[in-house]
């Protein structure tokens, strides 16, 4: 585990998913990004939802506009505003690291502790984790939760790290099709999204 720079912290934890609060407002990992928890054993997951809300749910923000561009000046003029909101991300768990430091593509038997930090997987870690098709198993199982769109964004983002991104997408599509007999029309919709090609950053 190389990248140890925490970008967020767990505020809600289960064995299936996590909710993390980002240390910087609006500085969340992007949809489909692979993350890890900075504890031992580490848990690997994928960002499937990002949202920003008031710290006090009873105090809903009111409109301050109109703004023709981003409301940066509003934040500069009212620096307290940044302290009233928080950006969070929902993480779907895809596996964990065992004591031998190998990837296990199963749910952890216990959830991570609240306040554990999370960081992004670096390129080497992404390639190692997605080197086997096993990483797809929990992702496919969780399609109803993460939605087809997030599924395809995740795969397209991961494909961008592989040498032959198109082949990776194609092979992944075959694996998905092999596990997806019950609803062919949904499968076709999913494959069309995958067919949009790799996401490179």
């Amino acid at each position: 585990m190389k990248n140890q720079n925490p970008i967020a912290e767990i505020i809600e934890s289960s064995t299936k998913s996590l909710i993390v609060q980002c240390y910087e407002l609006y500085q969340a990992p992007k949809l489909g990004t692979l993350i890890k928890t900075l504890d031992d054993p580490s848990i690997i997951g994928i960002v499937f939802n990002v949202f920003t809300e008031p710290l006090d749910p009873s105090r809903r923000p009111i409109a301050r506009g109109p703004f023709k561009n981003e409301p940066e000046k509003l934040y500069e003029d009212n620096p307290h505003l940044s302290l009233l909101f928080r950006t969070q991300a929902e993480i779907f768990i895809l596996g964990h690291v065992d004591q031998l430091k190998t990837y296990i593509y199963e749910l952890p038997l216990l959830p991570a502790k609240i306040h554990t930090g999370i960081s992004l997987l670096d390129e080497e870690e992404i390639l190692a984790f997605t080197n086997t098709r096993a990483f797809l198993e929990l992702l496919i199982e969780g399609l109803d939760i993460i939605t087809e769109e997030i599924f395809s964004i995740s795969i397209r983002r991961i494909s961008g790290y592989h040498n032959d991104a198109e082949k990776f997408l194609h092979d992944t599509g075959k694996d998905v099709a092999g596990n997806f007999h019950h609803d062919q029309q949904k499968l076709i919709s999913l494959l069309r999204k995958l067919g949009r090609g790799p996401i490179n950053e």
Partner: protein
Amino acid sequence: MSSTEIKQKIGTLVGGSLSAGLEIRLDPEYSVENLYVGDGITIDGREKRYFGIISDMLLQSSDSSLRSFPPSSSDFFVTSILSGTSAFTILKISLQLAVSLDSNFDEFDQLGLDNSSFGPATTVPPHFSPVYRATSKDYTEIFGSEDEHHGWIGTPKGRDEEVKINLDLEQLIKRSNGVFGKTGTGKTFLTRVLLSEIIKKNLGVNLIFDMHRDYSDSVNDESGKKIHSLKQLFPSKVEVMSLGKSFNKGQVRPDAEIMVSYSDLEVQDIEILSETLNLTSAGLLAAHALDRSYGEKWLGIFLNMEPSEDKENINSLSAAAERTGQLYTVLHTLWRRLEILKKFEFLQQNPAEESIKRIFTSLERGKHVILDFGSHQSNETAYILVTSLITRRIYERWAEQDNQLIIAIEEAHKFLNSEVASQTIFGTIAREMRKWKVTLLVVDQRPSGIDAEVLSQLGTKFIHQLEDNRDIDSILAGSSRDLRSVVSTLAPKQQALVIGHALPMPVVIDVRSNDTLTNFINPEKTATEIINIERDNDDLFGEKNE
């Protein structure tokens, strides 16, 4: 495909039955377009290895909605993924052979199977057994290597010539066999291959009735390439005899000219012509009466009669009618219809040499005889008459011989149709099988015209493309229904389904090329040999008049 080819898994056994065929789900990564109906496959069960052929291919999908709402064909990413996964190919397999696996094998490729242990598949491999495309090693295990009694006839369809299908010629010639296919499919070429192999291996002697000068003289194929005659291929082993003085300058000089005596013709030789000459049953009864009354020379006497009603003239048809108790009109009709025989210069009252004995002597000496019909090649009557007559006479004398005699006839439905098969010598030979060491090699484009019982007695059938359903039905009667689709997918030329007792399982072959037949010929040596053989023949039988 080379000898170092890797055994490639193509699918998994998912269902089916021994009688209706097994069902194989093709692996997604294997393209169905690399396979074809008739292709050989192997299935590794737990205790046996199985061999079969692909009899059909079905495109199926795991969800019926794919049929109703298929993805757009322009969406290549989606279609390429669905193809082989949700939409997949099922191969129907006609299971043929099984062989027990040695219990201490390490890998299937290391087996070294003994092909004597092959037997018909009487059980099926278990679910999810892996299926492979047959390799050249598999084909060699099944069909054996070329040796003193295995002859190379072709290559499995779609494979290169390193993979050879070798036929057990010793088994082949023990029974009558047939080469079938519509015109232009390569029947004659395959027959030439079979005859060449029999000659090369010295397994028997061939008597070939060469109606169209296909075997006695070189011909050009459609690309203009020269195809050597059997005489050119085997100058010291083959003798060409012409029917009458019917060869022309520039053609291969025959080793003998065949003349036929009227007294050699029997009523059954006339009977076989009934359809060609439009002879009535009354006419045939009259022929029998003439035979009884005038003896073996009846035909010569009858054709020399005068078509007159003068009863005083003992040489008149009227006198013959009175003598035989037949109606004059019946005899007159018979006489008119048989009159055509008088035009055949090879039919003589008293030929100088007993030609049939000449043929017999050559065959007895182990020479292969091609009877070239020369200028009579388009005359069906001459062909049927002479072929029937000579075959019957040779057959009668061959009983004491040890050597196997193979008689090759074209237009076989003329001799073996259901009306005449029971009466002709050909029907007898086809039914008696190897009893007299005489078998037939029938070549025909209309197998439905051949008597069903005769077809059922054929040991090995070489089936080129056939279009008429009746022909396909008759030729495959008694065989697995799966083979029907194999026949219907044969290429228009030089490709044949081979089924029968001379090979362990049916196989579709690309017939070996002409080049492979001629590459052992030394042209200069051949020319010298022909001259020497002709000189020998002149010494033996006297010089020929040209």
